[in-house]
């Protein structure tokens, strides 16, 4: 674009400049205009608190008495040498390692069994999804009742065949399993639907070709279905890891983190550090560690999903 010549009259020249080199294109204006409402909420209620949480973690910060002094990375050092933290982190990992494969495999098996678009299958899918609708307090209430050795329906059912009742929530080996069972029941819905959607996207003619070749069910699955589902599987697994790593309600309400702290999750530790022990700074440190773990997992998710595009 030609620049203004100094020979032109001043007023007209200025007007020309503005017309020829607008500062903001209408697209930029409308773009940010549309985005602004969300952006404002996002900055104030997600981004800022995240940074503020980091700021808190660098202080000795009392829940009610406020900041008591800058401690730099001392909180991080204390956290990483705190056995209770490591137990909570380990419990959370254990929980994720049990829940994620179980949910994924079960969801995949059901999705395969219900892959044909019939009305019956739609009803089945709706049934298996329905448990995902209720809240965590309802889920824990239901499962505490179901697993109760004295009054639960499981104890009653096993009792009819002479099996003595199990004390799920007080037993060191069974408590975590109880949480996993309740969680799988609660969270199966979304992976089931994701796998179902993924299966629907596989073109029918591939299966036709396999059938003509007289391929068995297993071979069809292994060489056609499974690779085609790869992207969906990765998505499902990583969504679940992120979801379940943040577990709070199930252990907090069903076992209170017991027996003897063996089911306490990382988020429960953060909550207790803040609201029982008064240490907001220390609690925020735990929260930052949680965030870093989530970040690593999410970057892995983005990396893997993009690989398939």
């Amino acid at each position, binding site marked *: 674009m030609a620049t203004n010549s100094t020979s032109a009259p001043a007023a007209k020249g200025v007007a020309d400049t503005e017309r020829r080199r607008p500062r903001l294109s209408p697209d930029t204006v409308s773009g940010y205009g549309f985005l602004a409402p969300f952006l404002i909420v996002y900055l104030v209620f997600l981004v800022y608190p995240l940074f503020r949480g980091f700021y808190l973690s660098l202080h000795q910060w009392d829940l009610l008495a406020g900041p008591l002094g800058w401690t730099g990375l001392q909180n991080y050092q*204390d956290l990483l040498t705190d*056995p*209770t933290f490591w137990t909570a982190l380990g419990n959370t990992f254990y929980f994720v390692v049990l829940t994620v494969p179980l949910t994924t495999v079960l969801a995949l098996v059901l999705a395969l069994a219900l892959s044909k678009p019939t009305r019956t299958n739609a009803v089945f899918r709706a049934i298996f999804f329905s448990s995902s609708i209720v809240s965590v307090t309802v889920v824990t209430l239901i499962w505490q009742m179901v697993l109760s050795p004295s009054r639960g329906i499981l104890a009653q059912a096993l009792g009819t065949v002479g099996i003595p009742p199990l004390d799920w929530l*007080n037993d*060191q080996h069974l408590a975590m399993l109880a949480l996993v069972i309740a969680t799988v029941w609660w969270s199966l819905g979304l992976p089931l639907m994701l796998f179902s959607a993924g299966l629907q996207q596989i073109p029918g003619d591939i299966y036709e070709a396999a059938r003509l070749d007289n391929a068995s069910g297993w071979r069809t699955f292994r060489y056609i279905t499974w690779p085609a589902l790869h992207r969906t599987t990765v998505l499902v697994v990583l969504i679940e890891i992120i979801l379940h790593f943040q577990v709070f309600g199930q252990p907090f309400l069903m076992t*209170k983190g017991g027996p*003897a*702290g*063996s089911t306490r999750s990382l988020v429960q530790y953060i909550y207790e550090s803040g609201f029982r022990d*008064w240490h907001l700074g220390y609690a925020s440190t735990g929260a930052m560690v949680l965030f870093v773990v989530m970040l690593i997992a999410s970057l892995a998710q983005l990396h893997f999903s993009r690989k398939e595009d």
Partner: protein
Amino acid sequence: MTMRRLLAASLAATLGLATTVPALAATDITLFRFFGSCNDQYAGVTDLDKAVGECGIIQVLTNKFNAEHKGDIAVKTQAVDWGTYYNRLNATFVNRNPPAVAVMHRSHLGDYAARHLLTPLDDLFKQVGIDKSDFVPAALKGVTFDGKIYALPFDLHAILWHMNTGLLGKAGLVGDDGQPTIPKSVDELMAQAKKFKDATGKPYLLLAGSVDPMVTRLFETLVWQQGGHLIDSDLKHANIDSPEAHKALALINELIDKGYMAAKYNYTESQQAFLDGEGAVLINGTWVINDYDQQASNKASALSGYAVSTFPTLYSEPAVWADGHCWVMPRGGARGDQRQAAAKLLKYFYDNDLAWSHTGHLPVRASVLNGDAFRSLPHRDAILSTTNEARGVPGATRSQAGIQDALNEQLQATYLTGKDQDAALKAAQKRVDGILSGRH
């Protein structure tokens, strides 16, 4: 169909809401407490004779107060469950709208007083006529920090030895005088427990040793009875990795391993087991004497005869874990007219210390404690010495909630998850040291 029901429900709800709008003139104050939720069961009840248990008595007292001050003061109860009570209370402080009156354990007072979160009550006591000289010295001391009174003492509670005398009789553990045999040493305990188990096949002792902090209270009692201590007097270090602690923990585990104590219960389960006659002795607090006495009078109950005693001295010193309830006025809670209203409620609780002691808790007013009305209540003569044996960690110890949880977790680990006792005590020592130093 469902739509219509929903509509009906929302209509009913709106109407319900409309009728809960308080009268214009009354001063509303919030009473934040645990003790359970039973205002439906006791709705409109103002007769104390009909009240049973902590929830019943406190609810009826509140109802009575509201009735006596109708149009003037309206107390709104917010019952929070025991396990998350302090988290919730702390959250109200964070939100800058704490309640007007709240209950607290004496063991938690220090944290709040130190952070200047409570209204000093000396002047308010004088205004409403609460005579602090009537308080048992230990009770008054427990609520005084830096020379100021920060709470109204309400009771003293400790762990007790609750007995199913019917079952003990079956095992030959009731004397000719009809009094149940109570061990006076560790050896006697073992012998009696064995005798009971051999005769009935059931555990001698029942304990809420899962989730609940009862095992910590038992542990502390056993340590103090040996003359040991748990927190150094300078409040900077714990003394959990001590010979007395090792002995106490070893005793607890020995009782469990030999089948003399069933501890894999939460609170409700342990109580139910006792009421179902699954064991002879339940280690539980003062707050259930009222309840169990009533249960035992029911012929259909498996609790065929009930007696209670002070926790037996199994070592050299009489001592028992104790704490106390008290009422506080959080700073920023009651404002303006509410302050007077709250003070009046406190006076009302002070006047009804005897009524509260019907629960089983020990009164904190000397005039009530020494009076006939209290001593004639069932079983009270058997537990009088508890007031003198009551022990706790030093009142100004910080974060006692966190300390108790830390200790509880390690103790429970030894019999719930098979943790080595040595390792457990060392871990507890380390964590409590961290708490005392302010790091955790």
